[in-house]
């Protein structure tokens, strides 16, 4: 017998509902905690959403955040946030900092003079400092981007709701969407908790999480649909348990490969996209959890009308050639 790495034994019989009060409870608590966090601590919005300027500096000698702050203070630019950036990819003599300046009154984008002044001020601290990138976004664009972001997340959730409803039962689509709302809320919550920068790329990550999580949920639902036809007399709860157990190996495998890819990106992919990748990594973990512990609990809670004809799982979107022909 050849060696096979098996993270999940061949046949499992976990009762995923055994601790449902705890598991579902944890999810509910995390969602509520996330909402409270966002309401009380708010989000560390990037300039995409509130306008302003980010300047990235690089120098050979270590960054002195205090000295930078003092040097920039006389320019009266309002709220200025300076953070030092660390990354395993940096050379030993590569010291990076980002400086975020709030949107200036009456200006759509930062004026060339301001940018020059900031550079001059920093040069008094460290004459070799270089600006490697600047980004400036006016309040008009940032206001629009907020709405684009909100709309895109809502549109994605709605599209999934409709699709799952068409392909499965409405109860499934409620369950799936509950899982998605859970994933998105908890991800936003962790960004609020750690005050990580929340910008447009995080919205992209949220949408990717939606896509990933629904992928996972749909695979479980697909099996559930199949088993509902197969085991007509088995109680719903047991059919669900069976379906999750049968797909568990696949769930773990796919989460495993996705996390392997994401973690290498998180560690080695550079600091520019670290927040983005962090959101996705976290989302994959939460999304996997929610498809096992949230989506189907909601379906069980609502209940299914099992006498009704189940939608035909073999309904094909495209011709599958020889296999179907046999």
């Amino acid at each position: 017998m050849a060696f096979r790495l098996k993270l999940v034994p061949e046949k499992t019989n976990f009762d995923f509902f055994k601790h449902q009060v705890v598991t579902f409870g944890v999810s509910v608590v995390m969602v509520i905690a996330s909402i409270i966090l966002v309401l009380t601590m708010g989000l560390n919005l990037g300039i995409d959403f509130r306008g302003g300027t980010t300047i990235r500096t690089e120098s050979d000698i270590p960054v002195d955040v205090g000295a930078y702050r003092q040097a920039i203070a006389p320019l009266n630019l309002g709220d200025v946030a300076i953070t030092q950036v660390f990354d395993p990819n940096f050379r030993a003599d590569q010291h990076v900092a980002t400086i975020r300046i709030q949107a200036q009154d009456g200006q759509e984008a930062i004026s060339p003079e301001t940018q020059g002044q900031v550079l001059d001020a920093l040069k008094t601290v460290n004459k070799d400092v270089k600006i490697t990138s600047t980004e400036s976004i006016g309040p008009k664009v940032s206001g629009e981007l907020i709405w684009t972001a909100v709309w895109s997340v809502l549109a994605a959730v709605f599209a999934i709701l409709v699709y799952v409803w068409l392909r499965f039962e409405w109860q499934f689509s409620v369950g799936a969407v509950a899982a998605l709302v859970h994933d998105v809320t908890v991800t936003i919550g962790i960004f609020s908790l750690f005050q990580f920068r929340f910008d447009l790329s995080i919205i992209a990550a949220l949408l990717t999480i939606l896509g990933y999580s629904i992928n996972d949920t749909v695979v479980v639902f697909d099996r559930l649909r199949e088993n509902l036809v197969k085991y007509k007399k088995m109680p719903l709860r047991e059919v669900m348990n069976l379906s999750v157990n049968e797909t568990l190996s696949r769930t773990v495998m796919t989460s495993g490969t996705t996390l392997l890819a994401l973690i290498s990106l998180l560690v080695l992919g550079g600091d520019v996209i670290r927040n983005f990748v962090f959101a996705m990594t976290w989302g994959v973990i939460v999304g996997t959890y929610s498809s096992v512990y949230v989506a189907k609990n909601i379906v069980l809670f609502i209940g299914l009308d099992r006498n009704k004809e189940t939608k035909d799982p073999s309904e094909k979107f495209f011709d599958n050639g020889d296999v179907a022909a046999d």
Partner: protein
Amino acid sequence: MLQISLWKRVLIAVIIAAGLVYAVPNLFYNRVATHNDAVAAETRTGSLTPEQQAAKAGWPDWLPSDIVNLGLDLRGGAQLLAQVNVDEVYKSRVDALWPEFRKALADERATLGSIRRLRADPGVLKIQIGNADQIQKAVQIAETLNAPVSSLTGVGQKTLKITTEGNDLVIQLSDAEKGATDDRTMQQSLEIVRRRIDAAGTREPTIVREGSDRILIQVPGASSAQEIKQLIGTTAKLTFNSVIGTTSNPNQATGANEEIVPSGDQKGLYYILDPVPVVTGEDLTDARPDTDQNGYPAVAFRFNASAARAFGDYTQNNIGKPFAIVLDNKVISAPTIQSHIPGGSGIITGRFTVKEATDLALLLRAGALPASMTFLEERTIGPELGADSIKAGKLAAGVGAALVVVFMIASYGLFGVFASVALGLNIALIFAIMSVIGSTLTLPGIAGIVLTMGTAVDANVLVFERIREELRIAKKPARAIELGYERAMSAIVDANVTTFLTAVILFVLGAGPVRGFAVTFLIGIITSVFTAIWVTRLFVSLWFARRRPKELVL
């Protein structure tokens, strides 16, 4: 059966081969990029420097030479989002109406009484009529000057909105005309910006209209957005000069009052011009495509009052002679004066096609920016940061791929090898498609590819797990494999359609780098379904046909 029909096998092989061939240029990125630059230079100038010839020879012509565009965040450069203040044009349009209306109304002074322009908001012409009871008469006269809108969308509508306010006549552009004007303003601005940036010789700038009144400008390699701003800010210099003669020798000796200016469209042709312009582009108030009395395409233009007088006198004295329209020290057109042109407006005829006439009108109007621009967003990314990002992205992708491959092979053995080869082909297909459709790879796009590596194996995992299950209920290998593919299909389809939906939304609503992520993610979903379902299946079926194993360990 497990067999895949011959034509399908051939089709799969052809797609894979095409994918590999079109992905290959990306492995030799710099060589292909310089080759493409040299080819572009050759079609533009007709000749090559020795370095360019070497660059051209660096990549064979018969191989595909499309490569993915690197986004600004990877190659460094500057990006600006400018809003064109289109409203400003309304004001100059309306101001230019006043002399015409004054004249028309003054002809009826006997009934209307005194005529006076009142102070009003920009873009509004307010005329006070002495005899308030004759206001309807004034409206009638004004309406005679109200021309129909000359745009496809505004058919049947008038250019002006003429209303009354007590004994004042209020004239402004109609909504249809405003729309048409905005469109023209945007076209002009785009054209000017494009020519300004091209003039600086930067490589492959992207200048596109965004929404109704915005322009997105991306200039790879620019060291700062400020530089681009200054470039766009410079005014175009347009002059009308009298032509003394033509020559093919750019270094011909000239008199004190002569200068040599090259032709813009004919190589080797040079004009000898009087350096003192008759009129300049600053005096031009409008230029638009028109037709001459014979119905041939022409360009109508209009000067302001003082230039109109100068131009009138000049044309009267020079009928039959050519004059040159010089833009940025290039003669863009040298038409012959057909007749005396009084009143500061006229048409330029020539053997124009409709497009040429439209372009020339655009060029003439493009003399200076029609309206000021507000910069809403600017980004500059240094080339070092871009290079660092590429390096980090490559490393992460390599390590990620290696980990996934090890994990898959450890879990599924030979089938894991099949899935890994399919994964490699998948990445090649993503690059091939991106190269051919000319999409842009950004840093988030690299993240999308890495993410695709993780998720692409999902379809295989679904199938393999299903095969395992079927084997467990003591099915023969052939039957188990067959059922595995068949029964996993609905899960694969549903899972990928939902993911696809979110990726489409991401693409439609996302901007900039986020869209770059959506592109790779979208393409990745399509290619991964193809490779997982068809390519690995082909491998499995070929392997099975050769070995005919009695039992299968998966």
